[in-house]
């Protein structure tokens, strides 16, 4: 069978810095008609540049220096620009990662789709309108006839990505390139969009080149998979072969670094890949992964490996699989190490808290380190002539939770549900509108600024974006010392249970850096010299500097690649067991929750809908929202096709939440009563509660 797309030896260079960056270097792949081909890789490995090279839409600094890209019989790289334009949008379409930015903000949706029809089918007027409507219905835009004349900003993120897909479909392409199409979307929306893409492909028979960093998304969508590393493909296989036995050491590491329930149950540390992705401006002699590979030997550093066949269509670029060069019989663990762990499923409870370390005893009355009751954070909406307050955005609307010493509570929810605001409200970085936050029995809400300042050493914060969480103008040592100076801890022998402080402040900075796995001499450097993961380590060291007992982690790994995420999660776990830290772990990533949390609280539109111990909630979700959320998370599971509970529509606005249960407009089990009153708590065990009318309501909390 002839491939639809055949790329040979493609090399793309970016001329941005002093030395040219070989973003794509000798890439070869083929995509068959009607198949989904997933190109997997971490950020910066060149997968997006590959896609843009195929479309010949490289940024100005980019340049294709060699290779060929054939679709059918035509080599796209030899076509004149005018002919290439006939290919773009017609034979190959593309959708991008950020649907918010990828649509023209001042043109209506119908105009933007109609443009494709006019360009490639010479369709205009009523015929075009009709076709636009047809396509929009196809991608599942409700009320398309009316909404087609609206502007992109009037649609939600998921809807915008549907628009992008509609635009791509309008040309009836043979190949659709989807560059991280769901990375910017929430899980439930991601499930909708992936479903849509799968359905469209089955009906239309077009091929999809799916570019993703998410192994699970690839497992759910792809027929064949290729793994990219440092500008080249290192492994290519069918979905079944790849997910049942990844061959390249890099692929194996990727699997092993995925957090999840199984890893936690076995008490395994996540496999982190040491070091960093090499700079693509340098020249490579041997295998590009050799420096970070556990199996590397001299040959790997000297000669770049060629393609070796593992089985059938499963090929890998690694010396281990070359019978002639391999030093020994294949490593027994290779290819099998991780798999049972991934595929194996639930049952069996785990003893939570068995590893709870000794914590500094507390003579306080409260059994919890932190207890929050009825926390509300409202933001006023100013409207009308005089900008009077007409309503409130109820970002956090009555959240109650508790965290014990040395425990981890995960606060889970989709974007916009108020989880970050809740974290900041708890730390008094945003003044709460109502409710109480007790830390060690002390009420923080309304505490005067001076006393609160003294307390701040007790609870700290780690942020999501490692790039904006460190001041680029300050050295690491200044960054870490800032908190110590402000709270006058460290160096002067104040209470600190995080290592020796005899050597003074500078000595303490060294100790801190070592405890987060950075060499002490890095303290004289500036943040821009560090990678994302290293910056996150610095941010952790900064928080630890004042010896807190509670750390609010606000999506600390969501901006990081999986292998780096594994490093940070390992570090956080280690610190917890050695220092007895309690974490409030805010995240949208269920597999991280499974790995790190003791308890979990699920938030929807400013309220907690279900909470309990992690195995209770994740294994036996009771609230329909939790159930839908969990079912929407893609998993690497080749055997069974789990049913996905589809949620309709998007998260409503917290300024105007639906009456009664906030979830009822999207709930598959909604009953009349759901529209009227917010449900009371239903308890399933002493720790597991949910708020839903499906279960018997507790009477006492009226």
């Amino acid at each position: 069978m002839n491939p639809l797309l055949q790329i040979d030896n493609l090399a793309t260079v970016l001329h941005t810095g002093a030395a040219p960056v070989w973003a794509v270097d000798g890439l070869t792949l083929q995509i068959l008609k009607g198949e989904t081909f997933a190109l997997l890789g971490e950020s910066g490995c060149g997968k997006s540049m590959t896609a843009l090279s195929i479309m010949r839409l490289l940024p100005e600094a980019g340049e294709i220096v060699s290779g060929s890209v054939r679709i059918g019989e035509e080599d796209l790289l030899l076509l004149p620009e005018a002919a290439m334009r006939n290919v773009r949008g017609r034979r190959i379409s593309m959708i991008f990662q950020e649907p918010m930015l990828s649509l023209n903000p001042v043109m209506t949706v119908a105009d933007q789709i109609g443009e494709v029809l006019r360009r490639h089918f010479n369709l205009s007027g009523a015929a075009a309108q009709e076709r636009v409507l047809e396509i929009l219905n196809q991608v599942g835009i409700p009320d398309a006839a009316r909404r087609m004349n609206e502007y992109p900003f009037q649609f939600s993120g998921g809807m915008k990505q549907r628009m992008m897909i509609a635009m791509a479909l309008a040309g009836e392409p043979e190949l659709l390139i989807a560059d991280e199409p769901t990375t910017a979307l929430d899980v439930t929306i991601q499930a909708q969009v992936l479903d849509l893409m799968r359905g469209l492909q089955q009906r239309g028979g077009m091929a999809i080149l799916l570019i993703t960093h998410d192994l699970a998304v690839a497992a759910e969508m792809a027929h064949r998979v290729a793994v990219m590393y440092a500008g080249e493909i290192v492994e290519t296989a069918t979905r079944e072969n790849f997910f049942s036995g990844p061959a390249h050491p890099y692929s194996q590491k990727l699997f092993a670094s995925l957090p999840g329930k199984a890893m936690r149950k076995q008490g395994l540390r996540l496999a982190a890949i040491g070091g960093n992705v090499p700079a693509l401006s340098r020249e490579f002699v041997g295998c590009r992964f050799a420096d970070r590979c556990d199996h590397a030997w001299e040959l790997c550093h000297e000669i770049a490996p060629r393609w070796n066949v593992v089985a059938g269509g499963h090929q890998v670029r690694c010396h281990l699989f070359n019978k002639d060069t391999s030093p020994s019989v294949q490593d027994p663990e290779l290819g099998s190490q991780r798999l049972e762990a991934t595929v194996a499923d639930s049952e069996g409870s785990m003893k939570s808290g068995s590893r709870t370390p000794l914590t500094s005893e507390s003579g306080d009355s409260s059994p919890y380190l932190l207890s929050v009751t009825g926390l509300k954070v409202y933001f006023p909406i100013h409207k009308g002539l005089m900008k009077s307050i007409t309503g409130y955005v109820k970002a956090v609307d009555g959240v109650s939770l508790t965290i014990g010493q040395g425990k981890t509570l995960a606060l889970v929810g989709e974007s916009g549900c108020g989880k970050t605001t809740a974290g900041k409200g708890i730390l008094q970085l945003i003044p709460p509108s109502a409710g109480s936050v007790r830390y060690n029995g002390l009420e923080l809400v309304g505490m005067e600024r001076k006393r609160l300042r003294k307390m701040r050493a007790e609870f700290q914060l780690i942020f999501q974006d490692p790039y904006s969480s460190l001041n680029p103008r300050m050295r690491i040592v200044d960054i870490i010392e800032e908190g110590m100076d402000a709270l006058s801890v460290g160096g002067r022998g104040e209470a600190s249970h995080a290592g020796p402080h005899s050597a003074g402040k500078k000595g303490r900075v060294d100790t801190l850096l070592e405890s987060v796995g950075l060499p002490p001499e890095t303290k004289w450097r500036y943040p821009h010299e560090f990678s994302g993961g290293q910056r996150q380590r610095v941010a952790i060291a900064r928080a630890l500097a004042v010896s807190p007992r509670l750390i609010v982690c606000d999506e600390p790994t969501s901006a990081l690649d999986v292998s780096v995420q594994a490093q940070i999660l390992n570090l956080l776990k280690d610190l917890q067991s050695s220092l007895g830290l309690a974490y409030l772990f805010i995240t949208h990533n269920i597999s991280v929750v499974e790995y790190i949390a003791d308890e979990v609280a699920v938030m929807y539109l400013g309220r907690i809908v279900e909470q309990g111990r992690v195995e209770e909630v994740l294994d036996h979700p009771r609230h329909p929202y939790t159930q839908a959320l969990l079912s929407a998370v893609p998993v690497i599971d080749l055997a069974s096709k789990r049913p996905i509970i589809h949620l309709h529509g998007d998260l409503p606005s917290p300024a105007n939440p639906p009456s009664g249960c906030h979830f009822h407009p999207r709930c598959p089990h909604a009953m009349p009563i759901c529209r009227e009153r917010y449900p009371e708590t239903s308890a399933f065990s002493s720790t597991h509660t949910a708020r839903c009318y499906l279960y018997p309501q507790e009477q006492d909390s009226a």
Partner: protein
Amino acid sequence: MLNYIIRRVLYAIPILIGVNLITFTLFFVVNSPDDMARMQLGIKRVTPEAITKWKQERGYDKPLMFNDAVEGTEKFTRTIFFEKSVAMFAFDFGRADDGRDIAHEIKTRMLPSLAIALPVFLLGLFVYIFFALTMVFFRATYVDFWGVVLCVALMSISSLFYIIGGQFLISKMWHLVPISGYGSGWNAAKFLVLPVIIGVISGAGASTRWYRTIFLEEMGKDYVRTARAKGLSESLVLFRHVLRNAMIPILTGAVVLIPLLFLGSLIAESFFGIPGLGSYTIDAINSQDFAVVRAMVFLGSLLYIIGLILTDISYTLVDPRVRLE
């Protein structure tokens, strides 16, 4: 949306009051009317009688804010502040030193000012956008590079040079149009050609370069890549997608200037002898006619504020995100 506009209009009121207070402070508090009188009458040989007479003629012989000598509300109205500053809200600007009514003078001089400023504005907008688009279309080629160099060079030349050079070359050497002056009706046209051309050229460097930056910034956005991915040609991408988005900052930046066109241009008008508000102001500055300068300051900020309101309205017209929210 209506609310939004009404709110902007209401917001203009405190600003106008602020401007009024600033001008009052500047003209009557920093220097007393006596100082001004002495300045105008000549420092050396001034007599107290002359000063009193000067102040009486202009109505500056009253207290600044509060008049003890009279009764009732007149305590506040028979003051310099009320008669000179508050009265400006009713467009009562008083009389100039030559005895003419300033409001009337402004009315008759607006038209000649507009006759130069409006063509310069419209032609300029068109020409600058055209050249900026050309440079962006040929970006990263020598057309673009030398275009930018030319812009920087044009920016570095004093506007006075454009006027003097233009007058010298076109009027004096080639005798194509009269060197200065103004006529009525269509006769004015031949006097206007040169100032308009020079006005457009002297603004070319900075504006073209600025528009080019705006266009380039838009070119870097993701939706442009989407448009190219549809297979649209580069000119279609430029005209249908980039131009429309770039017009939002360009138009709104330009709209604020429209009311100010009535004020004309100080320098061009005085060089070309056009009887507009610009030359009126210059003459007033040179003869130290404080009343006229004060009136022009107030008028200028009034027009600017109208421009701001128009800008807000124009936002709602060109940007659906503002219109529909």
